[in-house]
């Protein structure tokens, strides 16, 4: 579902998320209303436990709100089935994790190809696309290397390429530089933003790092499960 620049890609209305932790109820999100537009990079910041990751998971179709409404790229995820959410993630979302989460037995090329192959794209087309993306992230000479043979920055670049391989409309990143040194983190972010702007994609980053937030188009601060005004 392509989105035009400036169009609403993520719309959250009065989203609440409550967890039952034994006898205790934890309110991770308490009525969050937020709109993110296509072609922008938004940083969600806030102290630990403020609900940043929960918000990312809900926007990323990995979790459902207890109350409220989540509409992403025009699809209401609040009531969607598990199968719909899976397909939605595969077709429209790209994930980048703090710990990269690459499959250790696959080469960099295969890791990037994986979502495309799981989506039943042709092997040759997937390989061409993955090779191009890896070249774009500066890993043209590392395509056959396994994750264990790559540095942290290189691994995260592979993860970025994997997130982009199906050309998703939205890229969700959870502390993408949290496991990298400052210089490498800066390079990775620059690359991510360049690719996002180039392709007019929405980038949604959860971070603790004010420097990362500073590089984004917009910063949303969460505090105690609510958007701080």
């Amino acid at each position: 579902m392509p989105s035009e620049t400036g169009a609403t890609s993520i719309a959250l209305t009065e989203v609440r998320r409550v967890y039952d932790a034994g006898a205790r109820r934890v309110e991770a999100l308490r009525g969050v209303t937020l709109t993110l537009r296509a072609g922008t990079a938004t940083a969600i910041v806030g102290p630990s436990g403020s609900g940043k990751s929960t918000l990312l998971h809900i926007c990323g179709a990995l979790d459902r709100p207890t109350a409220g409404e989540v509409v992403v790229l025009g699809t209401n995820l609040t009531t969607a089935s598990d199968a719909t959410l899976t397909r939605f993630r595969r077709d429209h979302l790209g994930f980048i994790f703090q710990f990269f989460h690459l499959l250790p037995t696959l080469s960099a090329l295969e890791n990037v190809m994986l979502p495309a192959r799981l989506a039943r794209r042709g092997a040759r087309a997937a390989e061409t696309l993955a090779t191009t993306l890896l070249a774009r992230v500066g890993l043209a000479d590392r395509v056959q290397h396994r994750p264990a043979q790559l540095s942290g920055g290189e691994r995260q670049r592979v993860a970025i390429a994997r997130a982009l391989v199906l050309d998703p409309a939205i890229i969700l990143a959870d502390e993408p530089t949290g496991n990298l040194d400052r210089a490498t983190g800066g390079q990775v972010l620059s690359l991510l933003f360049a690719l996002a702007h180039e392709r007019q994609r929405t980038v949604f980053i959860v971070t603790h790092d004010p420097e990362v937030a500073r590089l984004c188009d917009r910063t949303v601060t969460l505090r105690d499960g609510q958007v701080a005004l």
Partner: protein
Amino acid sequence: MILPLLRWLSLRHWLQHPVRAGLTLTGVALGVAVTIAVDLLAGEILAANRRSLEAIAGKAQLTVTAGESGLDRVVADRIFGTPGVAHVDALLERQLIEPGRGPILLLGVDFLADAALRQIEAEGADQEVIDDPIAFLNSRSAAVVPESFATRRGLKKGDRFTLTAADGAHELEIRAVVKDRGPARAFGGDVVIMYLDAAQVALGMDDRVSRVDVGLAADAQPETVKAALEAELGPAFVVDFPLRRGARLDQMMTGLEQALFTMAALAIWVGILLAYNAIEISVRQRKNELAILRAIGTSRRAVIALVLAEAAGVGLVATALGLGLGYLFATYGLAATATTVSDVYDVVKVSEVQLLPRHVVTGLGVGLLIPLLGALRPARHVANESPVAGLTRGVEETFAAGRPWKPLVFGGLFFVAGLSLAWSPAAHTNIAVGYGAFASMLGGSVFFAPVIVSGLAQVLRRACGRRLWAEHVVALDHVVRDRRRAALNVASLVAGVATVITVATYATSFKEANQRWLASAVPADVFVTSGSKMAMTHNTPLDPALGQELGRIDGVDEVFLVRIADFDFRGRPLKLISTQMRGYEARSTPLVVEGAVSRDGPVARGAGVFVSENLAGRDNFHPGDRLTLPTPSGPATFEVEAVVVDFTSDQGVLLIDRAPYVKLFADPLVDSFELFLKPGVDPAAVQQQIRRQWGAKYDLFVLTNREFKAEAQELIEQIFALLDLLQLLTLFIAVLGVGTTLIAAVLDRTQEVGVMRAVGTTPLQVIHIVLSEAGFIGAAAAFFGTLQGALCGMVFLRTILLASIGWRLPWVLPESTYVFVFLGVSAASVVAGLYPAWWSAKQPTLEALQAE
């Protein structure tokens, strides 16, 4: 200290993984169950035989026999006159057929003899009948039967029933019902007792009896009296201890017992591999816990003790389960096993299996041995590791150390050692060498099968590259990555498959060799027997007069009278086969291994003997040798004319001409009439005529050549069915191992699956990945196991079989079993992967992503 740790760590861990715990317990329990079941079955069959012998022998300390034709009753007087003999009691013993029911033991007992050796007990009027033998003396049909016999058939005093003997059907009348004690307990109660004189008349035995039982004077030494009797009676008579006859069945069953216990040993071996794997996984998953224990001061010894105690706990629970399962297996398998033993070796009438304290001890031994052996290495490994390493190093690093060339080298060494043993001259004569060769080859696969399977995955991955679906790529990568974890399961699957193929190779080779032998050496058009389709163990020998009548049928060219007698020779229970050899040699083509067969040779002239290949190999007989046979008429010497193939008995066969046999053994009876028809005559028409004319009178079984061969094949399949069952159990244990490994694997890969789900992998695709991995492990292990099994089959034929039985069989590959095993094991592995696949797919994506 160990007990709290067991409760806090071990018990909780196993309870948290109930499916894996269940699979491990089932695997170990099945190992115990198979061992116990085999022990119970063999024990009950031999015990039933002993019970029967004891029941007939009563208090007799010695017994005198003289071959199948029996001995003259007057010999009893000579025996009684021998110093040390206090009582003698002549007995007639004949196995007859009760139409529609099978073998019955007819005992002719001398009620007038003193009751010192055996007593028949009844109550009231029945006892009076027994005490008054006059009631029997003039009747050829008066019989007494045990209570159980009458109850099973709904018969009572005065009722009549029919038995088939050599001269046809005999109707007997029940004059008394006696208690199931003494001789009435013999043959599982399927016994009919007649007055000795009446039985002799009824069976046309003149004044011959089957045996004379001897009771000794209080101060007599059995060995001394035995020697005196042997000196008095001469070599035509056999003086022995009554229960020694039980050893005969024991000896005949040795091959079957060995095969069954080998299968049980394999089930134990696979169980050990399963337990090892399960315990290693369990220890590995608690690596950090155990490292913490070490860090806070727990000694190495205590950690080892903890892991071993945990294994012992698994063993105890599994033993309890295994004993119950083993008892059930044995109870349900007893009838089938007894039928096989009865059809092939000797008729046994079993009652029920009994679980004795020694079985519990055996079960405990196996049940504790399996997990304790399995736990030793993981326990030592984790105890010897430094706490720091255990706390900091990754799971895979801790256990995945090692280079693939090492197992390849070790495996190769084992394999080469196995082949060297198999090709050593000693392998043909020493069964231990054969087992050594076999075990070495199976042991070798433990080392290199996992490397080969993971290598196959790599090759497939590279060779097929883009053509593979992403799920298959990931699944193959898992196989490669988890080589160490899956190693033992792959090895046990390979061992299981190899064993199945080995036994199938034996069965196929035996069937093929048997068919060739029957086609050339047993070519008659029609076979006539009584009481049983084959002249093996429970047919009734017939009167030779029937042969003349059969010869008068239109279209019958020639009738051969074949007697297949039990014959003890040099301590072995052989078969002594006799027929009109001159004519038979003209009709058939014996498969000669050594020497030559001539129509005017010593055998045709009545002066020679053909020796079966297995007997000749064992006792080193060659053409030209002279062989002295003990006969009721005294020792008789025959010249070995040729060594021939003969599969009638795995103990050995001697073939002589009928004329000297009848003369020397005073035994004119016939086990099988083999008819050769004139050209163009339809065997089915002759078959129908024989059935019409004599079928009912003699309880005849009339088979055409094709039916006879089919029956022989069925008998072989019946023997192998027992082994097939044990093999399936072994494979089942191995497949359980695949389930155990995959459960551990998906648990370890939870986060990885979470990532895959996050990037859009559907639950079905996750299931597809796990099942592909399971299927590949199964298929690759089946493929490799099949190759190894073909080789092991050849080794088995040229070592264990040759050394134990002496048959040289051609190496025939069981192609249909290959397909069945390949598909079956692959499918079973996929089934074993269903639960792990389902579990993995149902994990919520977010929780999986956050899993540690």
